[in-house]
């Protein structure tokens, strides 16, 4: 294709995005758009399936049947999200196997929050409330992103996430109004998950790459710092409502900004976890890789069986 032709296609493409038209899999798109979307959508899909592990850890130990069923349903939803997101990603011409390969070799990332351990039942509440809460703030704008399959997947994901978020908050509320031991458990979970949740919005704007381009393609509509502030402003009153304390001595309402000021995030910890040295990075990756490797014979069997069935049917047709 001539350079001129490409330029013209690019122009048309950018105009369509400006007009809020959706880009669909069969449409022409710049290679960089395709690659950026593969990166982001797959990272999102990987986060869903790695995210099944910390919560999956409490299924066998949930304290009531109702909570066990709700937790199973939540983890199942995450698997479902993984499924639509992988499918959305596959429309960009990459296979699920390739995507898994990228995850398993560490080439692709997933949300660092899942590299923290879930050590008490209250962590199920904190994850729903804070982690899903932060995820929603990150994700709601993506319901209007430019790539059609991703936007449509996000509509469904966001709806379910907000249900999860309410459920998580309700777990925290129950604990907070329970016995002193339960309240301690809730506060302890908030203490451990608060800062990692703030880190979910990524580095400060000054350090963030990709932002400008992502804004243009509607992969991003606000900056990391704006989203983080939105999360804090939304969450602090929720904590107060149930009598829990945000573990940040510098947290203070700023009348002028009509927003909360907050303390310094431990960016060393952030980068340590991103680089693969968080408390559970190795365990999470081992769990995924083992599941995949131990499942190889099952997937092979399914393929072999399907082929035999096809053969058998085509023989019958003759």
């Amino acid at each position, binding site marked *: 294709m001539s350079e001129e032709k490409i330029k013209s296609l690019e122009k048309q493409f950018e105009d369509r995005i400006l007009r809020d038209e959706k880009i669909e899999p069969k449409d022409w798109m710049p290679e960089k758009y395709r690659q950026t979307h593969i990166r982001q959508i797959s990272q999102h899909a990987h986060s869903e399936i790695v995210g099944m592990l910390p919560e*999956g850890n409490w299924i066998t130990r949930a304290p009531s049947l109702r909570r066990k069923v709700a937790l199973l349903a939540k983890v*199942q939803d995450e*698997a479902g999200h993984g499924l639509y997101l992988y499918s959305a990603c596959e429309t960009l011409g990459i296979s699920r196997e390739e995507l898994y390969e990228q995850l398993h070799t560490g080439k692709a990332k997933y949300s660092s929050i899942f590299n923290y351990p879930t050590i008490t039942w209250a962590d199920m509440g904190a994850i729903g409330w804070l982690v899903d809460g932060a995820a929603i703030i990150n994700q709601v704008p993506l319901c209007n992103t430019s790539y059609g399959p991703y936007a449509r997947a996000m509509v469904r994901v966001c709806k379910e996430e907000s249900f999860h978020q309410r459920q998580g908050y309700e777990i925290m509320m129950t604990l907070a109004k329970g016995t002193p031991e339960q309240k301690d458990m809730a506060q302890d979970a908030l203490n451990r998950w608060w800062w990692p949740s703030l880190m979910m919005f990524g580095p400060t704007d000054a350090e963030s790459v990709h932002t400008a381009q992502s804004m243009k393609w509607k992969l991003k509509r606000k900056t990391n710092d704006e989203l983080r502030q939105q999360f804090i402003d939304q969450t602090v009153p929720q904590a107060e409502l149930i009598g829990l304390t945000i573990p940040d001595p510098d947290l203070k309402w700023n009348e002028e900004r009509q927003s909360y000021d907050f303390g310094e995030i431990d960016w060393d910890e952030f980068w340590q976890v991103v680089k693969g040295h968080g408390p559970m990075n190795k365990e999470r990756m081992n769990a995924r890789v083992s599941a995949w490797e131990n499942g190889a014979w099952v997937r092979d069997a399914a393929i072999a*069986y399907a082929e035999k069935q096809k053969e058998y049917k085509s023989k019958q047709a003759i």
Partner: protein
Amino acid sequence: MKNKDLYNYILGIADNTLILGQRLGELCGHGPSLETDIACTNISLDLLGQTRSYFQYAAKLKGEDATEDTIAFLRTERQYVNVLLVEQPNIDFAHTIGKQFLFDVYHYLLLEKLQHSKDVNLSAIAHKSIKEVSYHQRFSSDWVKRLGDGTDESKTRMQDAINDLWRYTDELFHTTASDEAMIAQGIGVDVKELKTSYYERVSAILDLAKLDIPESKWFQEGGKKGIHTEHMGYILSDMQYMQRTYPNMTW
């Protein structure tokens, strides 16, 4: 308790769905594919949902402070009456599927009859559950066929799983004194009468899966009397952990 036999009869059904659901719950996020993970979680959800309906009813019968959770979590091992089959470990996907399949076929036959129980609560639960179990049975049968007639490795694994688990099938058709009392009243299902259909159906699927039907005539029993395999204690120590460590709290 007035309806002791009915109460026991309900536990005899619901302990199976509880423990099988619990076992499946271990696998969340660790299955061979996202699709099988979703399906297994879904089956676990169905089974635990059914368990809740049964235990809510049992709690009403028991009265006092009984709830679905005290029944689920606060008995000792000797008081659980699930069959040995459902507590067997998820050694590999073939064992998970084999166990599910050998239970599902039974479960479907049971619910078919239980729909006609003279006890309206049980009949309603059965009526609601049978649609779910019909799906479970299809899922596990399909996988038995895929693995049995897939690759050499999958065939060997699936056959090993069926051979290992076969010895636990006969117990499905044993009855306790409470079961007999409920059968006599038209409330309980006489599982002894399901045995022939069960082995016919199971054998038909194993045939389609090109697997051998085990010939062993040696069977294990004990679960229905609360005498479990050594796996059960470990299932319970996790399952009861929270309720035992933090008694009498609301979650």
